[in-house]
C-alpha cells in the first residue's frame, strides 16, 4: 500500500465510491416510488446526448458532453411523459418506447458520422474508463499535502465530488417533503407540498447524478448503483433514514471491493490481466443484494402471502 497504490488506485477508488454514492442516494427514493427503471432509461439516452453534443461542438470536451447528456435526459423525461399522456400508455411501456428509440438514434448517428478519429464509442459509454483515471503526479501518500501534485488530480474527481456534495445537500434540504411525498403523495399534497414538481426534481437530480457518474465510470455502474444498494438497504431496515445510510455503506463497499477485485483479483488466480472494474463493481453490488435478499432482517413484505410465511 505505497506509492504505487496512491498513484494507480486511490483516485479510481475515490471516484468510483463517490459516483456510487451519488447514484445510490436518489435511488432510495426511486425504488420506493416504483421508478427504479428511470436510471436505466436515463443511462440509455445519455449516449445520443453526448453524440449530438460532440457533433455540434466538434470537440471531446467534458462540459458540452455533460450538457448534451443532461439535455437528452430531460428530453427523454418529457417525451416519456408526453407519450404516456397523449397515447394513454402505461408508464413502463412508454419508457421502453422512448429510451430504446433514442438509444438506437444515438448509435446510428455515431455510426454515420465520422468519429473514427476520436475516442467515442458505444463500449466506452457502457464500461467507462475507471482504470485510466490515475494520478500521475502522485509518488506516495505525502502527495496528498503537496499542492503541485494535487493540481494534477484527474478532473473527474473534483467534479464527481461536487455533484455528490450537491446531492447530499439537496437531500438534506428537501428531506421532509421528499419523504412525505414518497410514502403518501395525497397527504403531502394536502399539506401544500408541490408533489409533481418534487417528483420531476427528483428525476432531474437522478439525471445529474447519472450524467456525472457516467462521465467517469460508464453506464453499467450507474444503473447498478441506482438500484442495488438501495434495494439491499431496503431489506435491512424499516426506517428511511437508516435505509439511506445503509445504501451509502453498500454503495461504498461495492465500489471499493469491486475495484480491488477487478484490479488484484485475477492476480490471485495467477493471471496478469485485470478485468473490467465497472463490471466488477456492479457484480459486487449484486452479491450484496443477493445476501440481503437471503438474510436481511426485513426482507419479506409485511403481510406477505401465507405460502411465503410458512416456508420461511
Amino acid at each position, binding site marked *: 500500500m505505497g506509492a504505487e497504490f496512491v498513484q494507480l488506485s486511490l483516485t479510481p477508488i475515490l471516484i468510483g465510491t463517490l459516483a456510487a454514492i451519488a447514484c445510490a442516494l436518489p435511488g432510495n427514493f426511486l*425504488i420506493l416510488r*416504483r*421508478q*427504479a*427503471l428511470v436510471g*436505466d432509461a436515463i443511462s440509455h439516452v445519455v449516449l445520443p446526448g453526448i453524440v449530438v453534443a460532440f457533433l455540434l461542438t466538434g470537440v471531446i470536451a467534458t462540459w458540452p458532453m455533460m450538457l448534451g447528456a443532461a439535455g437528452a435526459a430531460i428530453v427523454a423525461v418529457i417525451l416519456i411523459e408526453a*407519450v404516456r399522456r397523449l*397515447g394513454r*400508455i*402505461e408508464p*413502463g*411501456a*412508454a419508457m*421502453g*418506447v422512448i429510451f*430504446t*428509440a433514442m*438509444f*438506437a*438514434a444515438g*448509435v*446510428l448517428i455515431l*455510426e*454515420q458520422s465520422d468519429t473514427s478519429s476520436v475516442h467515442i464509442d*458505444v*463500449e466506452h459509454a*457502457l*464500461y467507462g474508463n475507471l482504470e485510466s483515471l490515475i494520478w500521475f503526479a502522485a509518488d506516495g501518500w505525502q502527495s496528498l499535502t503537496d499542492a503541485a501534485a494535487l493540481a494534477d488530480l484527474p478532473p473527474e474527481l473534483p467534479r464527481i465530488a461536487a455533484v455528490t456534495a450537491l446531492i447530499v445537500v439537496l437531500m438534506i434540504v428537501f428531506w421532509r417533503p421528499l419523504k412525505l411525498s414518497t410514502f403518501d403523495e395525497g397527504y403531502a399534497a394536502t399539506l401544500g407540498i408541490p408533489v409533481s414538481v418534487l417528483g420531476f426534481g427528483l428525476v432531474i437530480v437522478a439525471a445529474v447524478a447519472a450524467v456525472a457518474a457516467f462521465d467517469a465510470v460508464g453506464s*453499467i455502474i450507474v*444503473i*447498478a448503483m*441506482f*438500484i*442495488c444498494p438501495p*434495494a439491499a438497504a*431496503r*431489506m435491512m431496515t424499516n426506517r428511511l433514514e437508516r435505509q439511506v445510510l445503509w445504501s451509502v455503506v453498500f454503495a461504498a463497499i461495492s465500489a471499493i471491493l469491486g475495484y480491488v477485485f*477487478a484490479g488484484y483479483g*485475477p492476480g490471485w488466480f495467477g493471471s496478469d*490481466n*485485470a*478485468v*473490467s472494474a*465497472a*463490471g*466488477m*463493481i*456492479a*457484480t459486487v*453490488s*449484486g452479491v450484496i*443484494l443477493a445476501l440481503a*435478499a437471503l438474510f436481511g432482517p*426485513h*426482507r*419479506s413484505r*409485511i403481510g*406477505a402471502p401465507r405460502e*411465503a410465511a410458512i416456508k*420461511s
Partner: protein
Amino acid sequence: MSEFIEALLLQSGYNAALVGIGAALLGIAAGAGGTFMFLRKRALVSEAVAHATLPGIGIAFIVMVAFGGDGRSLFGLMLGSAVAAAIGLFIVEWIGRRTRLAEDTAIGAVLSVAFGIGVVILTVIQTMSSGRQAGLEDFLLGSTAGMLLQDAIIIGVGGALAVAVVFLLRRPMTLVAFDAEYAASSGTNVRLVDFAMMGLVMAVTVVGLKVVGLILIVALLIIPPVTARFWTERTDSVLWIAGAIGGASGYVGAAISASMPDAPTGPIIVLVSFALFAASLFFAPNRGVVAAAFRARRFQVRVHRRQGLLALARGEAIHDPFTIRVLRREGLIRPDRVATEPGRAQAAKALRDEKRWEIARGVYQDDSVSGRYDGLTPIETVLTQDEIAEIDRRIGPPVAVGGAA
C-alpha cells in the same frame, strides 16, 4: 434508392435476402410475443431477460473454447444465452415473490448485475490465450455484416418456430394476458401459460441477439404492441397488427441497412418501428392525437352552441367570442347578436329540452335516465315519445322565445 428497392425485393445477395426474411420473421414473433407482455403490463421484464443473456454468451464461448471448439458457433452461443436468460428471469420472479421489492426494482437489479457480470467475463475473454478475436461485442448491438449462411438459417428457423408457437398458443395466451383471474377460473393453467409467454420472450431475445443485439431487442418486444394498440380495441387484433408492424419493421429495416453504408441493422429496425409508432400516435383513428384533438374541438362546439342557444332563449346577452362565432357560423344569430328565425326556433327547443330534463330527473331518479343528463344529450335518445309527451303535458304548451312574445 435503387439499392434499397433491390434489397426490398431480396435482390441484393443471398445473405442479405436471408437476413431480411429472418428479420421479418423475428419481427413478427417479437411483435406478437411482446403483445402478451404489454397487455399483462410487464413489458419491461424483457429488458432484464435481454441483458441477462450477456454472461451466458461469454460463458458459452469460454466453455466451447475449453472443449477445443471454435467458440463462435452461433448455436452454442444462443444456447448459453438462453440458459442465462432463464436464470435471470427466475431471479426476477423470485425477488418479486419472496422479498418486499417491487418488480421494477427486481428488473433493474437483474439487468444491471447480469450486465456487469457479462462485461467482466468479456474482459476475461479478451485476455484469453486463444488470441482469437471473439467479436462477442457484436451481440450488444447486433451485426449482420459478414453473417454466415448457417447463422442466417438458424435465425430464420428460430423466428419461424416462434411465430408458430404464437399461432398455436394464441387463445390461452390472449385469455391470460387479458384477464388472468377469469382464465384461472375457466380452467386455464395460468402458471403454465405465463411460463410459455416468458419462453417466447426468451426465444425472441436469443434469436434476435445476432440481428438486433441485446440492448435493443427489448424495443422490438415493446414498440409494435404499443403501436398496434392505437389501431384497435380488440385483443386479438392487437396481436396480429403488432405482428405485422414488427415484421414490416424487421423487413424494411434490414433492407435499409443492407443498402446503406455504416447502417447497423438493429438500430435501423428499431427506428423504423419507432417511425410507425410516431405516425400511429398522431394519426391513428379514434386513439390518435389528431383524432382526439378533433373530437375535443367538436365537443367544445357542441357545448358552446347549446349554452348560446339557452342564453338566447332566456334573453341573456352572450359575451363569449367563441360562442358568438359558433352561432354566427350556423346562421343562428345576426351580426348584431339578435337571434334569427331558425335561431329562435332552436333556442326554444333547447330551453324546452332543458325543462323536459328537469322534470325527467325529478320523475326518474335512477341512473339510467338521470345519470345521462350532461346538458348535451338530446332527451329523445333517452326517453320514448310517450314519456316525452307526458312530460310536455306537465310543462304546458310551447312558449315563443324572443321579441314575438
